[in-house]
């Protein structure tokens, strides 16, 4: 019996097989890995947002002087600054609290030291003679022989001149802006002494002030300046009764509000302004801390309670952060709580050894210093993103200065005391609004176009039309956006009447023309069978041109001469030049090729034997289209729409250039919006790395990713169900 062996596979072929398998496998794995890596990176950046804050006692230093009036530290917490009653400013190493430098500023003794509002480096001190002196403390980094060293300087301002407080001054406050210095002093008999030095420079002497005395109620009052030094709070420490004064100039103060901080009959225990002094935090024995904010009302700005937080222990001290709207509350039971206003969160707490005399945040709010006659505790704080919470990101938040809780995205401002508004809702709204109007424009055109092209167009014309529309997808969206924002938007604004009427006239025109066309002799109709769409082009161009050229006539006829003002006065809609109408058209054009191409493939791919089966049963072309073709192609058409929607949601350049990027929540067709994608593009370059703002932008990227992921997954599920039901394709 002859033995027979199958030929072995050649080495070369085996090698090619193995290599192909490996390369393809590696490619697939690499794609998945890349997506996971992007996801992972997004999560890695976002994760710190959700880390909870911690407070931890780092050190307790004994043996400090007992005459400290104020504590401060430098930005990087290398030096602790003590302002002492003996007229000296002492700098101590933050680590050991050894004295590194001591500068005697004055030979007289001080009784009180406080910061000059709203500066962070300037102090005003009151000496035993009721003289107010001003000085600035600076920390400078120097490199001497490549060795880093911190140089502390104390600089007397105003040529070391001082200001004499009136006799029996109980309380004073100072405000300094670029051009003026304001001082308020309240005496025991209730007189409020207002002083203003205008156009004063650091090296000017304090002389020739404007001075004005007004009378107020007697009592233990706490009087201090409000925002920009143009407001004055005058608060009775005992009863919580307060007066709010508007001080455009010290000569013309005006009382705008008289009310009380008392909460259901309970008097406040402590009142502290937040950063910027737009709000006051009012603490109570019940453990409630109420935030009162200057909000605009019919009679001007007044203080209103906008938020309250409960700490469940009587509040003894409140101290606010220097750069954010956070604060620490220290209870009479010696618990220090860390809290944040915008997000309405109590973040962390720690027990203190003794009730502190002085409490201060470090400038970056990463340390809390508590001083209690000779003892200084340093509490370390990890609290990078207190302003974020689920509610602050998605819900309505009552921000400082607003009349009511709102959804708002306003991430930055020129002011340092600005409260960032990080509500993602307006951006989500804008994203969906832009996509919605784009889809309203795109779906009818793209799907109807696909139906016509696949079913009725001659093969010759289809061979031109389909690739033509698909090439539109390759058009850079920056060009579309640029044209939409700079060319289309002004045209639409100038010819609003005719643009709106085009949406009515063109469809009517098409129907009228079709009716006329069907009345023509069949010889004419048959001669351009399948090309009849081409004949529509001149008709549409002519109709559009006619509508545009009779814009003014039509406007006079329908809209009293001006559609824009008619829309505003009659319909009550405001008109922005860059609005959802422009986006609908421009982004609609951008997604039409995607929808058209996929839908056309689906419709064209409906097997001819199904179409013939239907026609053979006596169905008309229209019946066959509706009952068989569209039904069978429905999974594909649905996918096309969802992919188009995904594209519209993620589209960046068009919305960036043609929406105006105003993060407002208004469905109005004539107003703009800001989308997630545009927001990331606009703000990422100016966002400080690892700041809350930075991480929120990454969060929006993740949200955007999730939206597309959810929509695509839902679309895929629906498509699969449709396909098992209708598809034998």
């Amino acid at each position, binding site marked *: 019996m002859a033995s027979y062996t199958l030929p072995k596979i050649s080495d070369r072929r085996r090698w090619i097989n193995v290599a192909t398998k490996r390369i393809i496998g590696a490619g697939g794995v690499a794609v998945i890995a890349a997506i996971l890596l992007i996801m992972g990176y997004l999560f890695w950046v976002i994760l710190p947002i959700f880390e909870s804050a911690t407070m931890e006692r780092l050190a307790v230093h004994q043996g400090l002087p007992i005459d400290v009036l104020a504590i401060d530290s430098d930005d990087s917490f290398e030096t602790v600054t003590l302002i002492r009653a003996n007229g000296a400013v002492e700098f101590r190493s933050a680590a050991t609290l050894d004295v590194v430098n001591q500068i005697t500023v004055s030979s007289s003794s001080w009784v009180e030291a406080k910061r000059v509002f709203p500066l962070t480096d300037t102090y005003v001190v009151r000496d035993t003679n009721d003289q107010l002196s001003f000085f600035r403390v600076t920390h400078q980094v120097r490199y001497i022989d490549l060795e880093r060293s911190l140089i502390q300087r104390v600089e007397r301002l105003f040529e070391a001149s001082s200001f004499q407080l009136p006799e029996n001054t109980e309380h004073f406050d100072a405000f300094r802006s670029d051009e003026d210095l304001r001082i308020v002093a309240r005496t025991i008999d209730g007189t409020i002494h207002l002083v203003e030095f205008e156009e004063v420079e650091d090296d000017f002497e304090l002389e020739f002030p404007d001075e004005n005395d007004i009378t107020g109620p007697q009592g233990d009052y706490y009087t201090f300046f409000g925002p920009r030094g143009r407001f004055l709070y005058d608060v009775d420490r005992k009863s919580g009764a307060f007066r709010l004064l508007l001080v455009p100039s010290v000569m013309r103060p005006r009382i705008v509000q008289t009310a009380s901080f008392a909460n259901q009959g309970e008097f406040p225990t402590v009142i502290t302004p937040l950063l910027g002094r737009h709000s006051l935090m009012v603490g109570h024995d019940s453990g409630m801390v109420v935030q009162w904010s200057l909000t605009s009302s019919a009679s001007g700005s007044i203080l209103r309670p906008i938020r309250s937080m409960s700490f469940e222990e009587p509040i003894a001290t409140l101290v606010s952060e220097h750069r954010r709207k956070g604060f620490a509350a220290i209870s009479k039971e010696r618990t220090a709580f860390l809290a944040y206003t915008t997000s309405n969160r109590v973040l962390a707490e720690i027990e203190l050894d003794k009730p502190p005399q002085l409490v201060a945040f470090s400038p970056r709010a990463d340390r809390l210093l508590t001083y209690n006659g000779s003892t200084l505790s340093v509490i370390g704080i990890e609290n990078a993103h207190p302003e974020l919470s689920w509610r602050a990101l998605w819900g309505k938040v009552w921000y400082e200065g607003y009349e009511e809780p709102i959804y708002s995205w306003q991430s930055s401002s020129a002011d340092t005391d600005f409260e960032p508004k990080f509500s993602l809702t307006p951006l989500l709204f804008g994203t969906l609004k832009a996509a919605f109007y784009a889809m309203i424009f795109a779906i009818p055109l793209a799907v109807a176009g696909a139906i016509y092209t696949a079913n009725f167009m001659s093969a010759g014309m289809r061979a031109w039309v389909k690739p033509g529309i698909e090439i539109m997808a390759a058009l850079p969206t920056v060009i579309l956006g640029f044209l939409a924002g700079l060319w289309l938007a002004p045209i639409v604004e100038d010819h609003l009447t005719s643009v709106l009427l085009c949406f009515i006239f063109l469809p009517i025109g098409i129907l009228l023309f079709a009716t006329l066309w069907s009345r023509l002799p069949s010889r004419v109709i048959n001669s351009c069978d399948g090309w009849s769409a081409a004949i529509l082009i001149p008709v549409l161009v002519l109709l559009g041109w006619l509508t545009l050229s009779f814009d003014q006539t039509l406007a006079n006829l329908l809209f009293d001469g001006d559609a824009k003002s008619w829309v505003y006065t009659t319909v009550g809609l405001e008109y922005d030049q860059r609005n959802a109408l422009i986006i609908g058209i421009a982004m609609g054009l951008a997604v039409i090729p995607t929808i058209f191409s996929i839908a056309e493939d689906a419709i064209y791919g409906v097997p001819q034997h199904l179409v*013939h089966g*239907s026609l053979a*049963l*006596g169905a008309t072309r229209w019946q066959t289209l509706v*009952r068989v073709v569209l039904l*069978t192609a429905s999974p594909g058409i649905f996918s096309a729409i969802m992919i188009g929607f995904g594209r519209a949601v993620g589209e960046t350049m068009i919305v960036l250039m043609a929406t105006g990027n105003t993060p407002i929540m208004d469905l109005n067709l004539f107003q703009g919006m800001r989308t997630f994608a545009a927001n990331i593009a606009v703000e990422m370059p100016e966002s400080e790395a690892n700041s809350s703002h930075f991480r929120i932008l990454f969060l929006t990227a993740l949200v955007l990713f999730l939206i597309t992921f959810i929509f695509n997954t839902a679309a895929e599920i629906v498509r699969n169900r449709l396909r098992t*039901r209708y598809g034998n394709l």
Partner: protein
Amino acid sequence: MTIENRDGDSMNTTNVAIEVPVPQSAVEVAPAPHEWRDEDICIEVSDLSLAYGETAALTNISMQVVRQRVTALIGPSGCGKSTLLRCFNRMNDLIDSVRISGRIELNGMEIHAPTVDVAQLRRRVGMVFQRPNPFPKSIYENVAYGVRLQGRIPKSELDDRVEWALKNAALWEEVRDRLNESALGMSGGQQQRLVIARAIAIQPDVLLLDEPASALDPISTSKIEELIHQLKTDYTILIVTHNMQQAARVSDYTGFLYLGNLVEYDTTNIIFTNPTQKQTEDYITGRYG
């Protein structure tokens, strides 16, 4: 066995000695063409020529199709038999480059007349294709499809119609419990019978069967053939087939087409036992095809 024909005449049936076995139910004598009376004629084709662009597909075809009989069209591939079949319900209109001359009269009415509504014509002339083509809908909806096209109809009436059609297509017993399941889950033979049920649900006069069993297995094929026998009592059936045994088994008359010409047209008996044309004999005996 005696069968009543339309006119009430009774005809004696005799066994016909042809080589292929014929089901008993089909045994009857079809009248020879010279015995046809005018009222027996359902479709009359005269001088029909058809060309795809410059290529002639059918040349001067003239024939008559007898009412309530099965007429088979046979011939080698590309001879034009399917094209001819598709002329009867004007399915060739769907092809852009087709040119047709000559006349086709259905019950004395010219089907190419400009006043004819093609959709109405196709309701009278149903068609079943080579590949089963049920719609991606339920079994019920497939059968109801053609009925619904003609306008709204009460649900009970529609139910009755669907049941009637499925029974007539010998499918009712198999599907009565799963009418709402997708038709795509049926076997090929069931699908083809479903398509036939769909066609007869609108009660056409004529049924065109374009190689209805060519994609099916032998068992399904025999079911379809049995069905054709049953259906001819109500319908005029034209069948195109490649399978000569099938033509012999199911048809009363057979036309042989070759290169677009109707070479010979007579009773099936004559065509298969005693053709007058040499070409026919050559084809039947398998010399070419």
